[in-house]
């Protein structure tokens, strides 16, 4: 009976109910969409940071993490020093080295400064897979004297795949060294800073140029990404007893941009949610207050018939919960529709400092659906409870003076 009455009451003023449903649906859809967009962006940044840029974890000398006036050699170590660690921690899937340096890159006519990073394409297959090429391909796995050049640097130097460049730098011992290399491809990392100054080459070639068998950092790939952070303390404890000059850092420690964006989205989403919920709260409060005024005579009659204050409040809350349920359902459907539309329309955007636009994508996450539904329900209940409590405390005789 109560449910029946609640249903009929919400259809009594269709336009008003529709307005309430729209407010709830709008807020639910907005929360789902904002969370879906930020989650997609964060997931992408996490993937770039943990699978490509930094690896799941990095191990380097203390002097590498906190550089001072020490010599370059003091920051390097032999990758084979970590063989035992790989055996002791079975969750580690791959362990490879990187070695980087700043040098002069010349095409014969023009010389520019660049950062050269030596990577092991066998040890970091994900790195190779994630590389986006505007021209050409990745260098060979076997240590061919090939490089891939950032597309903005390549444009500045006017080089293309097949062209030769010369890299000039000092060895670890300070002796000038140079090597001729062939451009295998031009890549785009999507970030101007990288595309304008970075060259990747095989690790073995980098070691040859710098005349060392050492590496700057060891990049660790775990069977599951979550295992990296779970094993961080364990690995640092083991390093402390075997190689006390080496320290491990997880991808999250290294990915400053990810942490900043994560924090920014967190604050932004909370602020947006608060604004939406405040609007929804005020809207529903206003609607229910109007309903209470209109139904004063009815409330008086129900109280005279023996309905308790609690039952009056419950009836209003039941009606709002029904509105909320419809609003949430509409909101979820609207959010799913928007996500599908955004996917089809392929909206492109550019991040600050990015060299290539990326497609906006929004994730449809069950956790967001539950979170938005919970927020909408709680807000609706609170916004209803205030006028409903006022209604329940009405003077019955005064209320009966108003006609139904």
């Amino acid at each position, binding site marked *: *009976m109560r449910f029946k*009455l609640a249903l009929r009451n919400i259809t009594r003023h269709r336009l008003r109910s529709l307005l309430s449903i729209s407010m709830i649906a709008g807020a639910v859809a907005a929360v789902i969409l904002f969370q879906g967009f930020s989650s997609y962006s964060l997931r992408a940044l996490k993937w770039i940071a943990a699978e490509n840029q930094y690896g799941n974890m990095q191990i380097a000398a203390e002097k590498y993490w906190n550089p001072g006036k020490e010599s370059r050699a003091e920051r390097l170590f032999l990758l084979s020093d970590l063989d035992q660690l790989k055996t002791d921690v079975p969750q580690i899937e791959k362990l490879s080295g990187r070695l980087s340096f700043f040098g002069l890159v010349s095409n014969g006519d023009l010389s520019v400064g660049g950062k050269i990073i030596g990577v092991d394409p066998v040890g970091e297959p994900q790195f190779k897979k994630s590389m986006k090429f505007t021209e050409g391909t990745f260098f060979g796995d076997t240590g061919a004297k090939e490089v891939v050049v950032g597309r903005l640097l390549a444009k500045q130097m006017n080089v293309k795949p097949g062209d030769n460049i010369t890299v000039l730098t000092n060895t670890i011992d300070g002796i000038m060294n140079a090597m001729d290399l062939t451009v295998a491809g031009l890549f785009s990392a999507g970030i101007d800073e990288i595309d304008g100054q970075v060259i990747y080459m095989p690790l073995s070639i980098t070691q040859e140029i710098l005349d060392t068998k050492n590496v700057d950092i060891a990049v660790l790939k775990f069977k599951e990404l979550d295992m990296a952070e779970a094993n961080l303390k364990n690995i640092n404890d083991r390093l402390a007893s075997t190689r006390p000059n080496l320290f491990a850092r997880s991808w999250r420690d290294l990915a400053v941009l990810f942490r900043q964006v994560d924090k920014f989205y967190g604050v932004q989403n909370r602020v947006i949610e608060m604004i939406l919920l405040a609007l929804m709260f005020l809207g529903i409060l206003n609607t229910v207050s109007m309903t209470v005024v209109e139904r004063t005579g009815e409330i008086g009659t129900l109280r005279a018939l023996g309905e308790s204050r609690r039952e009056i409040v419950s009836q209003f809350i039941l009606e709002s919960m029904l509105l909320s349920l419809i609003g949430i359902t509409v909101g979820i459907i609207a959010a799913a529709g928007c996500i599908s539309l955004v996917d089809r329309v392929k909206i492109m955007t550019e991040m600050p400092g990015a060299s290539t636009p990326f497609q906006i994508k929004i994730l449809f996450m069950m956790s967001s659906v539950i979170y938005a539904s919970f927020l909408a329900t709680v807000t609706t209940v609170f916004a209803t409870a205030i006028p409903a409590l006022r209604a329940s405390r009405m003077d019955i005789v005064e209320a009966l003076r108003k006609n139904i």
Partner: protein
Amino acid sequence: MEKASEAILRFQNIHKIHSSDGVDFVALEKINFSIHKGEFIGLSGKSGSGKTSLLNVAGLIDPPTKGDLFIKNINIKDLKDRELSLIRAQEIGFIFQSFNLLPLLSAAENVEYPLMLLNLPEAERLERAHQALKRVGLEGFTHRRPGQLSGGQRQRVAIARAIVKNPTLILADEPTANLDTKTSDEVFDLLMGLQQDLRVTVMLCSHDPDLIAKTHRQIKISDGHIISDSFAGGAV
């Protein structure tokens, strides 16, 4: 003046003062009387004499400002709002001048509503609502909403709603005021017939002296005081 049988409701030095814009208005003063089972009381008096105030106090919807009101020997001063609501739900039936039916519910649902407050099972509620509507001659109108009924039919539904829970006391505030003479007589006769059949206590207030004359006990109020309380033929 009072009957020897057990009092359903006992007014003991009841005062009711209404305050509006800082001005006090005495609606009831030194009211002392009892209502006994099976009585049909007619409450008369001019507008503003205190009839409705007395009915509201009796119906536990307006607490007295001073004095003691006993319902079945329980002083309502000691009761919380929840307990008063329960007594209203179980013991008191209201019939209002403007019918006060819930517009979104059908006649049968309006009659069923008070039974829902008593947490009765649905099947029993439906059966009793149907029987009550049959008693008031509306068995063919169960699915109609109040807006689809005439004034007389609406008041019959209101009477069915009042009697459906077998209350101890029915309070009727000008139940025929919004009806034409013929319908008014029909509704009053129906109420009187039900009162006799069900042995329910009824307190009715009206401006109509002819209706009041038909009741068993007539109480006249003036300026918040009971100025006469007499029994006519047919009194219990």
